[in-house]
């Protein structure tokens, strides 16, 4: 039993090293849009505005909760310098498209088939969202999504908006 616990402890400590953190510059990316008639997405285009960047997947359970709230978020800040971008990490486009079909998407959606962008952001779980400030720096990171989480995210975006205005 002792040895079993030992193995358990070893495994528990084998966390893979996290490199990207709050305060660092968000990595550059250029990804194809998942929605028809939309241009490719690059992070440099969102310099100067606050970006809510969400990594999601069609097979991610909590993404069913986060999507309707992201639609509300986009709606709430539509007249302010806030962009909402969702990046799917699906390997199959049709799975991602089927998921999008269940929602009335009002924000930008890109797809990262290779997972390279998710890797660059060191995404720890599904979904993970980042708030990127107007200077392109990561202001906060949020792993997972449960009811009520958007309240905290909204507060952070408001704080950033106020900071940008002063």
């Amino acid at each position, binding site marked *: 039993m002792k040895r079993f616990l030992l*193995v358990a402890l070893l495994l528990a400590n084998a966390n893979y090293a996290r490199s990207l953190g709050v305060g660092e510059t968000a990595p550059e990316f250029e990804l194809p849009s998942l929605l028809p008639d939309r241009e490719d997405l690059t992070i440099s285009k969102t310099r100067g505005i606050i970006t809510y960047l969400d*990594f999601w*997947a*069609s*097979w991610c359970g909590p993404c069913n909760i986060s999507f309707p709230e992201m639609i509300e978020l986009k709606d709430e800040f539509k007249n302010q310098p806030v962009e909402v971008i969702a990046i799917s990490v699906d390997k199959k486009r049709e799975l991602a498209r089927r998921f999008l079909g269940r929602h009335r998407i009002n924000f930008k959606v890109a797809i990262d088939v290779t997972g390279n962008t*998710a*890797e660059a952001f060191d*995404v720890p*779980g*599904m979904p993970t969202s980042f708030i990127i400030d107007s200077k392109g720096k990561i202001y906060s990171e949020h792993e997972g999504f449960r009811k009520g989480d958007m309240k905290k995210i909204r507060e952070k975006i408001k704080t950033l908006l106020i900071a940008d205005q002063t």
Partner: protein
Amino acid sequence: MNYLKQLILSCATVVVMGCETVAPWDREVLARPEMQLSTDPMGDALFEQVYLSKEASAGGYKTAGGGCGCN
């Protein structure tokens, strides 16, 4: 039961050594319903109940143990 513990331990070691870190964005297959430990909780409950009452063995198939009222 020592033999059993040894067996489990060896298996655990082999499995752990042979594991690859799977990135969170590479888990579509693992998230599939047919890849869960239990794909049909009600069906499992039915079978476990039948086998529990019709055979001598019990337990081991779930996280939180169980008992048997049959023999």
